[in-house]
């Protein structure tokens, strides 16, 4: 693998799951749990003649950012599209539970400076949702992960990181929305139904999945950032994600709670307000919304570098 220094300056988008996991935490601090040597693989795939992976497509482990233990779950999109099955689902749930357990132990051991050592869960999503070969187990994992998020609520932050080729779709789109903080690069995409499926169901006139510019305007990070679904838009460097995570780790749990999208009556009302707005204005394209939020020349936004974009963009102001 490339050295940590190379990873920091390297593209997040081009990195595989293990490189992302290692590079998002402090230098030399990552320890993989249930790595390739443990050969913790899906028992279902061999029967179905589908290739297997030693880590079942998800890298899990723990590293440090400052004094904060960071529990990393990093999905590999090249392995069955990053889909969630029984084993990688269980690794994901287990990692979150381990973070929670660690939080409780640290709180007991360091009551005075717990905040400084408060653990964090980081999920690098690259997935289309449930793995069809083991769909029941995959669905169960979705439910268990959501449940574990609730247990972490207000105790330690759960952060989504989205910036890889497959994006974050299907059931995992819901899961990402239920985390506290979302960090994306320009290439990151979040959605429920994938573009090809929308085209198949609604027709090419409604949504042309081969028009990647349209796909990105609809599901991509710049749109999510304007609407407020994405909290941090960063350069496509693993180091930029590392820095954003350090920023989150330094915040109070109260501030972090304020970055959520769903999870309270007030937030539900805010979401309903958005639904009403869309009903009233009937936008034909995301750019209509960008304009509504004060971006005079919305067609220019996709062309800008992340740096330029962050300088000029107008975002939805949260109530």
């Amino acid at each position, binding site marked *: 693998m490339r050295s940590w220094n190379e990873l920091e300056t390297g*593209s997040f*988008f*081009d990195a595989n799951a293990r490189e992302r996991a290692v590079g998002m935490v402090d230098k030399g601090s990552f320890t993989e749990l249930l790595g390739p040597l443990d050969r913790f693989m899906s028992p279902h795939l061999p029967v179905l003649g589908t290739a297997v992976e030693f880590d079942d497509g998800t890298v899990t482990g723990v590293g440090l950012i400052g004094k904060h233990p960071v529990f990393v779950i990093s999905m590999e999109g090249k392995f069955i599209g990053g889909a969630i099955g029984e084993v990688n689902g269980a690794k994901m749930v287990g990692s979150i539970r381990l973070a929670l357990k660690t939080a409780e132990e640290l709180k007991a051991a360091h009551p005075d400076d717990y905040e400084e050592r408060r653990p964090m869960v980081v999920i690098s999503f690259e997935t289309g949702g449930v793995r069809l070969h083991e769909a029941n187990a995959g669905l169960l994992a979705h439910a268990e992960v959501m449940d574990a998020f609730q247990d972490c609520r207000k105790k330690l932050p759960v952060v989504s990181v989205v910036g890889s080729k497959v994006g974050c779709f299907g059931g995992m789109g819901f899961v990402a929305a239920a985390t506290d903080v979302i960090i994306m690069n*320009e*290439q990151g995409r979040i959605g429920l139904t994938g573009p090809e499926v929308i085209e198949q169901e609604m027709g090419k006139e409604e949504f042309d999945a*081969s*028009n*990647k*510019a*349209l796909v*990105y305007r609809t599901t*991509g990070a*710049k749109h999510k950032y304007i609407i407020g679904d994405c909290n941090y838009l960063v350069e496509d460097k693993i180091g930029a994600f590392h820095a954003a995570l350090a920023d989150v780790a330094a915040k109070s749990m109260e501030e972090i709670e304020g970055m959520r999208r769903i999870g309270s009556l007030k937030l539900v009302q805010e979401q309903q307000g958005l639904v009403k707005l869309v009903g009233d204005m009937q936008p034909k394209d995301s750019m209509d919304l960008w304009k509504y939020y004060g971006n005079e020349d919305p067609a220019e936004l*996709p*062309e800008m570098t992340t740096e330029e974009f962050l300088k000029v963009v107008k975002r939805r102001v949260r109530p």
Partner: protein
Amino acid sequence: MEFQKVTREWDTRKKDTLARLNAAAPLVKEGKIVDAKDAVALLETVIKPFDKVNIEGNNQKQADFLAQCLCKMDPGKVHDLHMVQSVLTLPEHLDVFEKGIAKKLDMSFSGPQAGRIAEFLQAGKLELGAIHTYLELYGRYFLDLTPKVALVAATMADREGNLFTGFSTEDTPAIVEATKFRQGIVVVQVNQIVDKLPRVDIPGDWVDFVIQSPKPFYIEPLFTRDPALITDAQVLKGMMAIKGIYGEYQVESMNHGIGFDTAAIELLLPTYGEQLGLKGKICKNFILNPHPSLIPAIETGWVESVHCFGGELGMEDYVAARSDIFFVGPDGSMRSNRAFSQTAGHYAIDMFIGGTLQIDPYGNSSTATANRVAGFGGAPNMGCDPKGRRHSSYAWLKCGEEYGIKEQLWGPVHRGKRLVVQLAETFREKLAPGFVEELDAFKLAKNANLAIEPVMIYGDDLTHVITEEGIAYLHKCRTMEERTAAIRGIAGFTEVGMKADPKETKRLREAGIIKTPADLGIDISKATRSMLAAKNVHDLVEWSGGLYNPPAKFRNW
């Protein structure tokens, strides 16, 4: 001796055309302009049964509206047409046969319609004249396949019928010249009718009717290769090519194929090529479409000139801003021209290099599959040794000097040889072998009743084959036996490669006829995507300083 002079009229073609033009005159609105709604009626008036008709289908630009109109003609009025066209890619190009409007076909390349052509041939819906190379077909436009009616596409026209074809000029001049100067009829679909053109590419008096099509003509970015999809194996072969061929022969002028293999080479020039100190020595003059993957090599000063067969969507502004490199008109936009580019590609370049699907033990190379009549396009024009070449260059002379049978064939005369290089993977996706004992072209010839097997590059023209196993310098071989052994020696674990005799392969390595990556001093574990000067489309945009504007399907932002 007594001469028998024929008694005949000598201007029947002219009179016939005049009669047709007069019959169509009521459909003309002003100048040469005909309404799109009258297009079918126009075609039914100017086209007669058994005419030779050219419908402009290039690699990229398609006279798609006129193709649709052609299909809407009444087969009772117009039938048995003989279609002569270089590229057949739209469904309508075959619908005219299905509907009984056309009967015979002469063409070069068919791409997506290749399966249907094979089907139609077997069902007797279509008579195939021949599958040509581009230059060969253009040649026959001026010989025995001159169109009576040409249906072409241009970007803009003015009211006098002057045409602007600009960036996507492609085949238009060749078709129009052949048609008009044998008293034929030229119908043009244009995206826009304007008062003043940026420049005149086709003079108005060569054009009879202009129709503004309801939608701009269809154009596809066929030559854009996303660097994100280039594999480590392609990087390895690219490094082998640069070191073992480009560097070794100091190849200055060339055509690159359109696959990922050659895109990898283009992206390795600023990195690996630079490391080898080859800048200024190789890759100066290209005959090539404006490949976005060439941008980093241009920006780092490798390339001196590029002439293009056609345009490429998204490259308009970049090309216009690099007029030292590309062929740009006084209006500031590029002009492509397939006939001239193919001429340069046939006679003038030192090397043709491209990917292929199958190579047999004799070195014949083909992209044909058993049930698709796909044709050749221009590859055979460039992938051959042009016997009409008389200027020398280092690469050409060196390749001739090394020619293993030059004494038997040439005597004492000094001659050179075109480098014709094929890049092949021993196994492609889904483990389909790249080397076979018999080409699928043989099955296709049988299935489609072709007189000759559609071989893309003949074995005796092929000088080098590159696989991940090594480079075979085939032109150095003295016998067919040695040639076959060299091919087997780099064919890996395919059926062809398994028959290699390891002792003979070793001897060929010692003789410099086979060079493995190790022989070339290339560390396989270092041949990775990290060597590429651009790793994705976004990087290409950055290299271009924002001048390259990739089509929506290649964006991920």
